[in-house]
């Protein structure tokens, strides 16, 4: 099960209804929330992807259960991509990819939503969504070097600052993040 903020039932509906309903539903969501759109219209896969490209909302992926397609979308925040990075210690995707073998000494902390994490992540990455981080700091080993990653470097910037404020001394924000990650990855399961 992928954690979502809303589930939208479009089963049995044909084009253009899955798109129309998705638009109406996402208008009601807060930025950052995730919606699961259930549809039986096979065309909805390409339609949802095209719709996301045009609206700027984030298409996370699709799973199939029998005849039902489950599309996952995250409502984007208009400021998300533009926000200034403030945490000073950063590392590029490529550098992190080279450090991944050093498992003993590093933690990769993924602060995206669980639905984003489920479809594509760095192998061994720990999932703690930004919104839950403050209450779950004890799950992270302070003695290790912590690499914080999200989609574009914005949420991970906030998470890096939060960690630094709470006594984590060796924290790096990974830029640009999963949106352009070309290193090793895994998906599915937990």
């Amino acid at each position: 099960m992928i954690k979502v903020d809303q589930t939208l039932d479009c089963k049995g509906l044909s084009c253009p209804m899955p798109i129309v309903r998705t638009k109406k539903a996402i208008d009601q969501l807060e930025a950052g929330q995730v919606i699961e759109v259930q549809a039986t219209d096979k065309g909805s896969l390409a339609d949802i992807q095209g719709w996301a490209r045009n609206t700027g909302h984030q298409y996370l992926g699709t799973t199939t259960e029998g005849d039902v397609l489950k599309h996952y979308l995250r409502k984007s925040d208009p400021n998300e991509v533009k926000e200034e990075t403030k945490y000073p210690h950063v590392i590029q995707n490529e550098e992190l990819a080279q450090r991944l073998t050093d498992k003993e000494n590093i933690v990769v902390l993924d602060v995206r939503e669980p639905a984003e994490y489920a479809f594509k992540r760095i192998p061994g990455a720990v999932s703690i969504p930004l919104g839950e981080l403050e209450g779950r700091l004890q799950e992270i080993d302070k003695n290790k070097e912590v690499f914080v990653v999200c989609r574009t470097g914005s949420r991970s910037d906030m998470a890096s600052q939060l960690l630094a404020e709470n006594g984590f001394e060796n924290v790096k924000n990974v830029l640009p993040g999963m949106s352009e990650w070309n290193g090793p990855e895994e998906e599915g399961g937990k």
Partner: protein
Amino acid sequence: MANRTAIIASNGSMFDAYKVFNIATAAASADYEVTIFFTFEGLNLIHKEAHKNLPMPAGKEHFAEGFQKANVPSIEELAQMAVEMGVKIIACQMTMDVMNLKKEDFIDGIDVGGAMMFLDFAKDANMTLTF
């Protein structure tokens, strides 16, 4: 600038209606600005009574069952949805005069205008479609 889709609907069969309203509502879903100019037989697609019972094209009557099976929304619903989503509908004044139709004969939320009213929108559109 936002994407703009300008559509001319000038035919009056059931098939034409789906082509027009599917494209229009999908575009509106993606936050495109959409204006449809309904002219000649196209006026049937927004006529209060006529659009509830649009004819299949000659020889294609057997598709009626397929429409039901595929659970396609009715044209009445699609037209209303288009209006709710901000699709601008222009009924052609000249055709209305020729056919002796009044604004009240059409669904709510439409405008009546001439060719220039449509062209004024279409000149800045990045997609112009005719059905």
